[in-house]
């Protein structure tokens, strides 16, 4: 057990625990705040795994933008203060499928990587990732920017009834 292993275990436990709270809590707003904890712990995991730029992008985009959007949606649809009892469907199929997927994948990965230990490679800094994106992956990058623009326009068209499609 090295220091990186201990950090990975601790941050992973925080991430898994807060993700469990996200899918089980009865409070809508608290689910969003637990999601912040989960995504922040995953940013820490990325940092330990030498993915510096990905960690900071995760903090900026997920914790900064996506969670704020989700909390906006919670407030705009219905914001009950306190617990609400009508958030869940009956649970057995979900437990079966979700538990099966999670534990099955975990067993597969444990079987494959049980004794593997690697040294951490050098960090994926903004410089290295930038040269990689704008070297090998520049076409997917441009396609993604078009996709973002299309999603933006689509969101505006969907959410404005006066310019949307005829119903």
């Amino acid at each position, binding site marked *: 057990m090295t220091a990186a292993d201990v950090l990975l275990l601790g941050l992973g436990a925080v991430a898994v625990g807060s993700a469990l709270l996200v899918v089980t809590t009865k409070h809508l707003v608290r689910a969003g705040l637990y999601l912040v904890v989960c995504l922040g712990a995953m940013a820490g995991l990325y940092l330990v795994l030498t993915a510096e730029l990905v960690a900071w992008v995760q903090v900026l985009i997920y914790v900064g933008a996506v969670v704020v959007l989700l909390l906006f949606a919670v407030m705009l649809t219905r914001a009950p203060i306190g617990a609400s009892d009508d958030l869940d469907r009956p649970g057995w199929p979900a437990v079966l499928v979700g538990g099966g997927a999670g534990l099955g994948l975990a067993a597969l990965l*444990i079987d494959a990587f049980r004794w593997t230990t690697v040294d951490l490679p050098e960090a994926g800094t903004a410089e290295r990732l930038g040269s990689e994106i704008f070297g090998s992956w520049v076409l997917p990058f441009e396609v993604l920017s078009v996709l973002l623009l299309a999603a933006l326009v689509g969101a505006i068209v969907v959410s404005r*009834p006066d310019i949307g499609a005829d119903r």
Partner: protein
Amino acid sequence: MRPVIPYVMAALLFGIGVYGVLRRRNAVLLLMSVEIMLNAVNLILVTADTTARAALPHLDLITPHPPPPTGQVFALFVIVIAAAEVGVGLAIVLQLYRLRASVALDEVPLERIDA
């Protein structure tokens, strides 16, 4: 570093996300569960990138330089796609709330309503 730790964490997070998608009937909570699943996939990508780069330190034998962090590039792409997805998804959820005053997913009619 043992890569099995983040791999197992990612598998468990993915399972939790699947559970949330199937269990929750509030549309915003369902989107949160989808975010958890996307993050699990990102964690797999970053861990695989770290493992592969550590296991294959010099892919290019002629001019030896460190292998590129391709998995991290993919993780960035997935983050961008998730941002686009959540934008469009929340627009649809808000429109659903405006039409039906509820975001409960099992009350959404699947057939066409002729108003």
